[in-house]
């Protein structure tokens, strides 16, 4: 059988698919039985995860899509389908538009800020031997801590009169502000807190990435003449950190998109709608105003945006990122 098969494939050259499948169907061999058994096992092993994925993720997503087409209010016993009315409202709603713009601005500040600060701190820690563990720990702390508690500390720091920030600024002669109650400063301040919180995470990942860069490459770069720090960074460090960088950008972007706790505690979306962001809007519409249908429509928009963004990011960076 085998001899014949190899003979055929040799004489025909690349066997066409139809031809191949015909040949294979003639072979009722133990190998095929074995393959089917293996497939069954594969399904059995993947089964539990698959079921959980369907129950906890896919079904709720379908539920949200359906809910977005209704006018259901939380607790109401009746609902009626309204078609795309919720989506139409979402598009023309000023609060939603503000919320969308705020979210984008917030993400555009937090992601580069976190990546840059995380990389700089990781490089600084890596460049010196002293107190490495200490620096690592203090920069990682914000990520470990409960953000709710941390937000309250930030509120105290940013208090317009007794807060440490304003007192320090006043002492140094720098203009002070009512940081969280001023329309121009509230969003940037939240973004700074976002950076502060995610920084440690990015730093730890960068540190791990830096460790895995072969030292030979730095030596080679040095001999080749790339001996300024900027050249070293451009020839070796940044390209070799590519995969880590991509991971950090995606994770931090997703975390920034779903910011909720700092808004809820510090600004409640205000002043005005200056810090209104998608997840907060979604929560408020669904659980404060009890408009589940409208909230679901916001959720759908949110979901579509996040998924699209992740796909685009992955596609772009996949092309430019080098994997070992």
């Amino acid at each position, binding site marked *: 059988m085998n001899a014949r098969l190899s003979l055929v494939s040799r004489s025909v050259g690349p066997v066409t698919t139809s031809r191949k499948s015909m040949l294979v169907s003639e072979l009722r061999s133990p190998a095929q039985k074995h393959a089917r058994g293996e497939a069954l096992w594969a399904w059995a092993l993947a089964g539990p995860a698959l079921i959980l994925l369907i129950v906890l993720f896919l079904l709720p997503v379908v539920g949200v899509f359906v809910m977005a087409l209704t006018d259901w209010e939380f607790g109401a016993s009746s609902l009626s389908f309204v078609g795309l009315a919720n989506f139409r409202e979402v598009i023309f709603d000023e609060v939603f538009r503000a919320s969308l713009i705020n979210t984008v601005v917030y993400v555009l500040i937090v992601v580069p800020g976190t990546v840059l600060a995380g990389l700089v701190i990781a490089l600084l820690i890596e460049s010196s031997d002293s107190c490495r563990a200490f620096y690592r720990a203090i920069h990682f702390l914000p990520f470990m801590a409960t953000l709710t508690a941390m937000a309250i500390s930030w509120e105290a720091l940013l208090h317009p009169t007794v807060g440490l920030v304003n007192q320090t600024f006043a002492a140094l002669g720098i203009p002070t502000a009512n940081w969280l109650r001023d329309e121009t400063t509230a969003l940037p301040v939240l973004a700074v807190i976002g950076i502060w919180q995610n920084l440690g995470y990015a730093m730890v990942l960068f540190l791990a990435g830096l460790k895995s860069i*072969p030292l*030979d*490459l730095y*030596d*080679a*770069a*040095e*001999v*080749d*003449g*790339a*001996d*300024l720090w*900027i*050249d070293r960074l451009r*020839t*070796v460090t940044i*390209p*070799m950190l*590519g995969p880590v960088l991509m991971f950090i950008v995606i994770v931090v972007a997703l975390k920034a998109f779903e910011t909720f706790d700092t808004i809820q505690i510090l600004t409640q979306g205000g002043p005005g709608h200056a810090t209104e962001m998608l997840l907060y809007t979604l929560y408020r519409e669904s659980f404060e105003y009890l408009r589940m249908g409208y909230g679901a429509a916001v959720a759908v928009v949110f979901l579509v945006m996040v998924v699209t963004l992740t796909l685009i990011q992955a596609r772009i960076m996949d092309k430019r990122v*080098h994997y*070992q």
Partner: protein
Amino acid sequence: MSGIVLRNIRKSFGPTTALHDVSLSIVNGEFLTLLGPSGCGKSTLLRILAGLEVQDAGSVAIGDRVVDGLRPKRRDVAMVFQSYALYPHMTVAENIALPLRMRRLNAWQRAPLVGRWLPGTGMARRAIDMEVGGTAEALGIAHLLDRKPGQLSGGQRQRVALGRAMVRHPAVFLMDEPLSNLDAKLRVHMRAEIKELHRRLGVTFVYVTHDQAEAMTLSDRVVVMLDGEVLQVAQPQKIYSDPDDRRVAEFVGSPKINMFDAIMRERGQVDVAGTALSVPSELTLGTELTVAIRPEAFQLAGHAGPGVLTGLVRMVEHMGSDLFVYLDVAGVEHPVIARLSAERAPEIVTGQTLHVGVRPDHVLLFDREGRRVRLRDGAAAASVTPVREWA
């Protein structure tokens, strides 16, 4: 023009001393190999030469220029690393071009996007591309220029690494175990190519290896290093047949040289494992010595007698043209290894008693400190009367 002089180089890493007072002078155009087991300081010495490591004391001169304190870039050296150290995100062409880009384009011209449009960049880039193409052509990798290192085989990567070193015509090539990541067959092939490259370029090569076959085949001179010291600097043949130090004799040669503790019994004769061995030496009687005999210095003998070792065959290894016979000799701790011609010793079996005679001109003597005790001169060695009969 570009010889290298190392003067009293010392280097420690914390409590461990990597190099004790190493001095070395390398002739322009020479192929010099630093040979030694891992941890002997040979790589450290090479890195100090390159400027990747700074010596604690001593000075390095390349050509007529003292290069201490100069960065690698300014030393006019190129280095090939054991791991090749190719930039994995760059194509072969970009890898080879990098040393030229770093030297010929300024920071602004190298900048992404804008650099391309600055005056002079285009011409410099075209010149670089030409030279990269030429180098790739010379190494037979011109068809690989658009690939990334990850898509290349070991031998191809090796060539790219060589290309990156060659492209800017350095005065000195430094190679840190460049062949040890290749399989045996390719290693022999690339060895020949490196030799050819050296012949063609005619510049100084400093080559680090722990592989004596590489050192022997490639080098004009070999530096044998151990524990941060230079033990001997000589031509490969001399390193093998005329070692200065017991440790050199032990490190070079495979299978390993046989060592025997011996005492000068009478004038011109030492006592080795109960057998009198004649050696032309004027040492005082009673001097303790180490006698070293290369495996191939043994020949089959018909029967026991002076100058003949007798032992039980423990193991026989057939190597094609030769046999390695391991003999248990009374009074000797390790089995004695004899390399015999397969034609002349066809039927040796494990367990049999074997007599092997020693060719006296192949006997090396070392004192108890491991220093070589020289025979007076070549004539003296030849005039020794044979004290045994050959089979």
